[in-house]
């Protein structure tokens, strides 16, 4: 296999949204993976190990189930799995927003009653 030809493959992958390409012929082959996309973080967070908490559902954000107070305030330390909020899908279903990692709740980007869509950052957690 002429490895120079692999440059063509790499150039092509960059034009697509593929994350992995494998090729095998007989005993020869190769596999490419694109580097994981870094979450773009505003400059004032740079240096901190920030993990975004994004909405995994579409609906109206609330701090907690009706009648219950907000569980974790800004700056509070959180454990992985802690409840940070609830998304009401508007069709009689709800989805919990949980901390994916442990750390400090360093930034809140959402308020009760906000409409949220999939992938929207709701919080940033500064990892321990």
């Amino acid at each position: 296999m002429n490895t120079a030809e692999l440059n063509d493959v790499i150039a092509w992958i960059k034009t697509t949204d593929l994350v992995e390409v494998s090729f095998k012929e007989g005993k020869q082959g190769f596999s490419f993976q694109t580097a994981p996309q870094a979450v773009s973080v505003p400059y004032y967070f740079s240096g901190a190990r920030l993990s975004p908490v994004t909405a995994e559902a579409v609906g109206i954000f609330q701090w907690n189930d009706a009648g219950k107070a907000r569980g974790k305030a800004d700056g509070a330390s959180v454990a992985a799995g802690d409840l940070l909020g609830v998304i009401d899908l508007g069709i009689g279903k709800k989805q919990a927003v949980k901390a994916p990692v442990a750390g400090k709740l360093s930034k809140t980007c959402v308020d009760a009653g906000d409409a949220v869509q999939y992938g929207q950052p709701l919080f940033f957690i500064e990892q321990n």
Partner: protein
Amino acid sequence: MFKKILVANRSEIAVRVIRACRELGIKSVAVYSEADRESLHASMADEAVCIGAAPSKLSYLDMDRILAAAKLTGADGIHPGYGFLSENADFSQACADNNITFIGPKADAVRKLGNKSSAKLLAEQAGVPVVPGTKGLVGKDFKAQAEKIGYPVMIKAASGGGGRGMRLVRDPKDLEKSVNSAQSEAKAAFNDGSVYIEKLIETPRHVEIQIAADKHGNVVAFPERDCTVQRRHQKLIEESPSPALTPAIRREMQEAAVRLATAAGYDSVGTVEFLFEKGKFYFIEVNTRLQVEHCVTELVTGLDLVNIQIGSAAGLKLPVDQKRASEIRCHAIEHRVNAEDAARDFAPCPGLVTTLRQPGGAGVRVDTHLYAGYTVPSYYDSLLAKLIAYADTRLAAIARADRALAEFEIGGITTTIPFHRMVLAHEKFRGGDFDTHFIDHMKEAKPHENARHDRPAAAR
């Protein structure tokens, strides 16, 4: 009429529906997956909601996410497009449960017609010709039954799929042996050895009738679409009228489609598909939705099917009668331009569209979601654009289609445009005398001589 319609789809069909909404003064909501952030439908709609991750089952096939987006934006109707949730009776029901109108047939009609065997039964009851076969499973008198159906016949497993438990029998002396082996194969594969016998339609054309119905019991049938140019059951070129039909057969087919739709209580646009061979047609299935190739009928009749579909869902009466619906005003040919390499067995070729020049001029319509700088995602089907050419006669439409295909430039990715031009130039296609095996038999469809084997297909 609707105030706001959520379009639960992507690509060219989402764009098509948004355009129809705009002409009706209805606000539109696009939903999109993470892979479709840059998609044209998301930027064209009045509002857009990201509903999930790239794989369809986490976005375009997830009923809760789509319904939540409809609730959030206050949409009072959902248009499902084609594919995805368009023929899902449960989704239609879930829309109704949430006080949102599903722009398609009622759930009951989808259930009746969506299942092939129940649709076939209903067709028989409505006097629509079906592929001749045993009424049920074969018993001891299978030899007499096969004789009555007429050879060649296919033996098919009742619980079958994937060709297992299937046998082709041309000679009556092979029948018993084939029935036995089909039964034992079916028993081994599906734990059900029951089989039935159907006549083999060897060289069929695929001809379908577009219908439209309202909630007041009116049904009309439009001129047929001929979708015989297929590759492995994927339609590539559709035209109307069919070069193979006589006016008498056309009328018979239209009447059969109306009878079936009436029997099912159908109340939206849909398509009744037939096989056509030697002057006879046989019902195969109903598509209870708008189809990719609906544009062909729009051009031939001069009508807007999406507009009619939305109106019907809103409770309006059909704006046309059967006489108007039957009018044939031109000949139209549609080419499905896909991101595929015909020389590499139609391997998908997603990627960045570097440049785009769309064809134009008299008698040309292009439905597409492409723009220069758009990256075709690898997660979904490879349809890039539908190019429809229309003219007074079939040959004039062919000349126009070829001219338009030559003008069509999609830079950066491999498309099926050259393949379409090859078909248009083919003597058999131009003569109009071909069947569904035409493409598989086209010797030119073999890989090009300069195809190299030391590089991955994806790199070309």
